[in-house]
């Protein structure tokens, strides 16, 4: 059998999602889970590409990998399902270098505000993190510079096309409101498991979140709400990418897996299990409308309103700013 | 009223009975030694008096008041520890002044008193040294100074001289005795060296296996041992087993393998009861007319004289002999002694029986 190691998010690699593939292929798949995109990059960059066979970088981060010469181009001949990519993903420049695709969009979604509907009167938007003191000490924000600063920028009304190239003045503005934000927080959260625990134990009533806690906690009987703030919704997309050292039989198996991951069987399971939307339309027709609504593929035009995460050129300054706020 | 009194004092460690009911008193201004072989319970008694070990049974009275439960720091008693237990992080002067902090003295008085105590043991010159920079004998004096600086009523000394060489030990013995006389404190000194006990004490308590074998003035202990054990341990006496045949006034008649002798002895022996005849080396002499015939087995040079061991009727006798009279090993010799000078003591077996009946009522 071919041994494959996939570095990915835990909720993408559930055993039942992968069973059909593993049953029909002679592959031994090992998964190693990541906590942040950056951690994935740091590990690969420091430890060399050869240690992993398949990775799951964010669309905005692929350029990091290509600049470090860690990836090989996607072999579209081996990934027929790539033809089914939604137009947005086909058109985007992200994930591509010199016309070659290195990170192929894989799945996508939004980062909403999740809140305890039983403990909050109205649906919150970003301003809940910056104004008023009703929820002081009951809020949580992700400990992540990119999103944290994006949210502050959206709250401040900085236009989307300027957001990732803010000048010093704008950044100073951002810093000011982030300081206010910090004083309202119970804590910053580090992993989605961490946040789920915070909601469950009643420590936090409202947080910038990912989607899973909303469904998880609802299932456990808590009255949860999910808000898509009117100032802008953060959209994200993760890609699949193949590190450079993967060759021969292993390379073939990897691309077979990539194709499977973009195909209908996996897509359907992800839609119901995640629930997340695949980046291809492979499974769209097999999903009932209610579930389509949940994962934003009923009306594909919503994608246009998302604020897609990008890699700011002055990211080091962003991180420094974020740390300054936290350390203040 | 005695300064300290121990009544039926016992100490038990788990299942080990280290001290098994001892009674004694310490008078004011006296020098008392606890003498006995290793493991007989001397340190245990001292530690109970010092307050470092709980009394298992019995009572300790100081000035007639029970002190069993008084903490070590509250007893007017100080100790010179066997290992000296000098504080390694403090100078000699600070060591000596350590306890004065608790007497309500000013720092200046404290230092003066400590200096005076150091003066007493002639160690003023080394006041600023650390203990580890001193020789064993010097450390011992500092330990002594530290204990006397507190002006205790009772000073306990646990084998304070055992680490010193013979000459130094002799000098220190004289110093200790002088000190006790000058300060008019009571000293309780633990040792397993009988010579030390004799050199120092007004009163000797001889112990064995957690009980007191005999206590009394040194002369009594030496000349009138109650048991064969004391006679042997103290004077190195050969103990010849025998049987009392007559209890005429002033002396007993005893029948032994070496012959029949009329000799004084401990009180209360009855005709027909077993007893031992105690013959100390310096009481025996070579005598062509001597009644005892023996064969020489060893001769040991001791400087001033020789110690000759000889076997007579299966019993080993030791006697001191001048340089010019030392017999050959293997030679047949005749030994004499003055029956009026030797002593009859109880046998071990009888002593034990006595003790059993004593204990009952």
């Amino acid at each position, binding site marked *: 059998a071919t041994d494959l190691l996939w570095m990915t998010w835990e909720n993408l690699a559930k055993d039942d999602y992968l069973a059909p593939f593993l049953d029909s292929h002679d592959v031994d798949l090992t998964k190693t889970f990541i906590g942040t995109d*950056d951690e994935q990059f740091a590990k690969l960059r420091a430890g060399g590409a050869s240690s992993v066979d398949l990775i799951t970088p964010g669309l905005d981060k692929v350029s990091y990998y290509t600049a*470090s010469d860690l990836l090989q181009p996607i072999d579209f001949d081996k990934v027929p399902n790539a033809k089914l990519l939604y137009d947005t993903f086909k058109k985007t420049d992200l994930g591509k270098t010199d016309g070659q695709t290195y990170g192929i969009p894989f799945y996508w979604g939004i980062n909403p505000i999740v809140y305890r509907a039983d403990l909050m009167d109205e649906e919150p938007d970003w301003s809940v993190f910056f104004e008023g003191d009703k929820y002081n000490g009951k809020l949580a924000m992700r400990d992540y510079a990119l999103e944290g600063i994006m949210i502050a920028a959206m709250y401040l009304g900085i236009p989307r096309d300027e957001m990732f190239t803010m000048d010093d003045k704008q950044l100073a503005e951002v810093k000011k409101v982030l300081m206010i934000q910090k004083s309202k927080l119970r804590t910053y959260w580090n992993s989605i498991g961490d946040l789920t*625990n915070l909601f469950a*134990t009643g420590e936090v009533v409202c947080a910038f979140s990912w989607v899973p806690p909303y469904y998880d906690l609802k299932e456990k009987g808590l009255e949860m709400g999910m808000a898509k703030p009117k100032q802008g919704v953060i959209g994200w997309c993760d890609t699949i990418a193949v590190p450079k050292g993967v060759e021969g039989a292993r390379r073939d198996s990897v691309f077979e897996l990539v194709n499977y991951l973009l195909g209908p069987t996996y897509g359907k399971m992800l839609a119901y299990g995640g629930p997340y939307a695949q980046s291809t339309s492979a499974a769209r027709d097999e999903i009932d409308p209610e579930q389509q609504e949940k994962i934003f593929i009923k009306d594909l035009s919503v994608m246009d309103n998302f604020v897609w995460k990008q890699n700011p050129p002055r990211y080091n300054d962003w991180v420094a700013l974020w740390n300054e706020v936290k*350390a203040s | 009223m005695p300064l300290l009194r121990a009544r039926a004092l016992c100490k038990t460690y788990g299942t080990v009975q280290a001290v098994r009911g001892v009674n004694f008193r310490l008078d004011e201004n006296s020098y008392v030694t606890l003498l006995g072989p290793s493991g007989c319970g001397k340190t245990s008694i001292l530690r109970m008096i010092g307050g*470092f070990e709980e009394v298992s049974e019995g009572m300790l009275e100081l000035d007639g008041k029970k002190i069993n439960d008084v903490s070590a720091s509250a007893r007017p*008693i100080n*100790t010179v520890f066997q290992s000296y237990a000098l504080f390694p992080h403090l100078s000699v002067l600070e060591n000596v002044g350590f306890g004065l902090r608790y007497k309500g003295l000013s720092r200046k008085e404290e230092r003066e008193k400590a200096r005076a105590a150091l003066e007493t043991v002639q160690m003023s010159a080394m006041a600023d040294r650390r203990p580890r920079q001193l020789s064993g004998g010097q450390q011992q004096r500092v330990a002594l100074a530290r204990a006397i600086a507190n002006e205790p009523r009772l000073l306990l000394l646990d084998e304070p001289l055992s680490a010193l060489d013979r000459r130094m030990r002799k000098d220190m013995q004289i110093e200790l005795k002088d000190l006790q006389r000058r300060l008019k404190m009571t000293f309780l000194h633990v040792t397993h060296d009988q010579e030390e006990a004799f050199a120092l004490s007004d009163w000797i308590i001889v112990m064995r296996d957690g009980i007191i074998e005999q206590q009394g003035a040194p002369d009594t202990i030496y000349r009138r041992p109650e048991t064969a054990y004391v006679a042997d341990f103290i004077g190195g006496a050969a103990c010849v087993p025998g049987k009392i045949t007559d209890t005429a006034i002033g002396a007993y008649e005893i029948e032994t393998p070496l012959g029949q002798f009329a000799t004084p002895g401990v009180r209360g022996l009855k005709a027909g009861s077993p007893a031992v005849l105690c013959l100390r080396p310096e009481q025996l002499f070579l005598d062509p007319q001597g009644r005892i015939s023996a064969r020489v087995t060893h001769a040991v040079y001791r400087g001033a004289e020789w110690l000759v061991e000889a076997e007579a009727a299966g019993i080993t006798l030791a006697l001191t002999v001048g340089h010019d009279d030392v017999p050959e090993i293997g030679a047949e010799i005749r030994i004499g002694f003055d029956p009026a000078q030797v002593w009859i003591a109880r046998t071990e077996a009888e002593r034990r029986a006595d003790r059993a009946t004593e204990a009952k009522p």
Partner: protein
Amino acid sequence: MSLRVGTLLAAPVTAFLLALCVAPLLILFAYSFFRVDFVAISYDPSFANYAKIAGSATYRGLILKAFGSGALVVAITAVIGYPVAWFLAKRAGAMKSALLTLLLVPLYSGDLVRVFAWRVLLGAEGVINRSLIWAGVTDAPIQGLLFSPLATHIALTYNYLPFMVIGLWLAFESLDDAWLEAAADLGARSPSRFARVTLPLTFPGLVAGGLMVFVMVVGDYLTPQLLGGASGITVISAINDLFGTAFDWPLGSAIAWTMLAILMAFFAMGAMLIRRSSLVGGS
């Protein structure tokens, strides 16, 4: 026995440590003089990173905070640990080694699992708050129990107390009871005995245990992050961020080496203290 036997024995260990501990740190040291350009390290040496650290109130503050936390936890664990170490050395008897290991075993449950146990204990609706409300001590949950420096320091104390106990325990093992008895004999009651005899004579153990705790507290970034609330950032997590998120290895290396240099200074100071006090004390 010639000196060569010892040297021969030490050689493989020395080689091993040079290769796997000293060499990587030296590489890190080299990196601290470089510069990062997007994702490429550019190898033109300068002191820019160190200048940046010196000029940044954030990093200076974080380093200071780490050392402050370290010192605080050292103090707390020392106070808690002294009686325990004394008990283990002097009173535990045959149970000694069993008790010592029982003290360490809870640490094997894993830092992360324990963090969430602390949340259950300290949380607004946690065990302690519920008990307090039930007992009528307060009527509203004490929010500050969790996600506060208090929570961080409780957990840090928990995590490193055993190491302090081990350091002190070693010192107590070589503390002769006779010294304490002598002090009692001279009239010192227990507080005075502690201050004048026990403390000075177990000082090397305090320094050794203190150094261990100090370094580990300084190095612990998870506990403050997960229990410390919004102010849970530490210099180590900042280093972590620089290596991970910002991909600024050179700056991260420079901060790491600044920390190491300060720690080494502390270590040297500790070693000097131990040597001085063992010149004075010990036997």
